[in-house]
């Protein structure tokens, strides 16, 4: 099963290299190396980080509606990038945007763990995430109202919608290290998440350090998702949807989802990104829309379907 998923991802990776904005063709070498390859690599990393974080957070919080965005790190990463943009740093120094995003994600993670306290439980972590999200959203609105001119406002708004296009290999490399580090932290949490499915008391009695597991889940998510958001903006619903897509195939044990989740997240984001790039072929639009728009449009009905099925 996991091999088939990996094969699917490899095929999607190859297909993504062949698809441009509104065209399907094998591109010139320079376009392949400087446009398609960064875009595809970024899709794999960001989608993988979102899928894995979603699986870990749903397991750690014992909540099928948990999503990496719940912790507010996506919001603070966006805020950091917007501040870098707002001060005109990005105009003089191209990596300022992702670096601002990374700083925002790090500060957000610091606040998150501070709010959650030294011995967090599931509910305290969720509350801390809601607080961080609310602060990030308020400051983002403030930054947008203070935008220096309408063009800057338009550009910030477009960036915030989340996209994989027009990113350089150096930006991809900047995000790669934190995403891989976060992934390495999250992949080791399997047995702890399995024990947590019987509740925090039982997990503790099985010798699982519950607070440390929750800390690591939050830190790993902040690294994997925060770094992704600082380069690609806020891409929603991948982390929420991926674990639900996998459970019928891999079973419901949280630890069993940790390997397939990054593969499925990467595959899903590559598919969504190929769809938005092909959209100008069939829809009356001049350029590809941000991929975050498509994942939200597809993800929201899915959320309703989950809620319906969970209702008695």
């Amino acid at each position, binding site marked *: 099963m996991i091999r088939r998923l990996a094969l699917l991802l490899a095929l999607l990776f190859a297909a993504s290299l062949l698809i441009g904005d509104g065209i399907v063709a094998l591109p010139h070498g320079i376009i392949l190396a400087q446009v398609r390859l960064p875009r595809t690599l970024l899709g794999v990393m960001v989608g993988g980080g979102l899928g894995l974080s979603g699986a870990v957070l749903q397991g750690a919080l*014992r909540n099928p509606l948990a999503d990496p965005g719940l912790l507010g790190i996506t919001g603070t990463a966006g805020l950091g990038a917007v501040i870098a943009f707002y001060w005109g740093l990005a105009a003089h120094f191209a990596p300022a945007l992702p670096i601002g995003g990374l700083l925002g994600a790090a500060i957000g993670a610091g606040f998150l763990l501070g709010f959650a306290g030294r011995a967090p439980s599931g509910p305290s972590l969720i509350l801390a995430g809601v607080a961080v999200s609310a602060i990030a959203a308020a400051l983002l609105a403030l930054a947008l109202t203070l935008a220096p001119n309408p063009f800057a406002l338009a550009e910030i708004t477009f960036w915030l919608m989340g996209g994989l296009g027009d990113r350089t290999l150096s930006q991809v490399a900047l995000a790669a290290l934190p995403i891989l580090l976060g992934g390495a932290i999250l992949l080791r949490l399997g047995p702890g998440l399995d024990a947590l*499915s*019987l509740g925090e*008391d039982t997990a503790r009695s*099985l010798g*699982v350090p519950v607070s440390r597991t929750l800390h690591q889940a939050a830190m790993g998510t902040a690294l994997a998702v925060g770094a992704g958001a600082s380069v690609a903006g806020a891409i929603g619903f991948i982390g929420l949807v991926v674990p639900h897509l996998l459970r019928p195939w891999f*079973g*419901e044990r949280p630890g069993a989802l940790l390997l397939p989740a990054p593969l499925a997240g990467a595959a899903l984001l590559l598919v969504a990104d190929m769809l938005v790039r092909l959209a100008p072929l069939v829809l009356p639009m001049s350029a590809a829309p941000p991929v975050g728009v498509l994942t939200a449009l597809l993800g929201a009905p899915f959320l309703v379907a989950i809620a319906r099925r969970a209702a008695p």
Partner: protein
Amino acid sequence: MIAVSQLSVVLGGRRVLHDVSLAAGAGELVALCGPNGAGKSTLLRALAGLLPDTPAPDPRLVAYLPQGARCAWGLTVEQVAALGRIPHRDAATGPVIEALRLCGILALRLTRVDRISGGEARRAMLARVFATEPDVFLLDEPTADLDPAASHDVMRLLRVTADAGRTVVVVLHALDLALRYAHRVVVLADGRVAADLPAADALPAAAAAFGLAFGIDPEPRLLPPG
């Protein structure tokens, strides 16, 4: 062997346990009885090292079943029982299968735990404890949700387990089961040990803790199997 001595616990500003001492040795089945809110579950959590100031015991040697435990996901019965191997960091299937057999749910092992009855799910949780193969069993209401015959099956299993040299401390509301199967009955009332007696002598003290009269019942009633 597991023990606490002179334990006092305050939870949320309310004193739940006052100066409680309890020891249970190998080969003993100890039943904790008492009215709602007497502190039974808190005492069991203290023994399991789950209160802030209590030391955590070795999870390979002491296994704990909380009250009303349920599984957040649709794991299979066998996967739930296999969680009991986490303290040993192995994937041994022998103890898991044996635990499922002891708890009478081997036939359900591939069924999802959220698709079976409450009593069957409760026995899956109990099988998780047995899969750890601990020396000390701390069980909070293991017979809740079970029908009368299954309750007697579980209590007989616990008695056999204790007689084989393990320590079993079990919170029970069913006084008749406590008096029939336990070696010792500890009666808690208002956070204090009201009585700590051999099961055969415990009825008057237990009845007093609940404020109930007791006597010889002339009505016909169900008898335990066997």
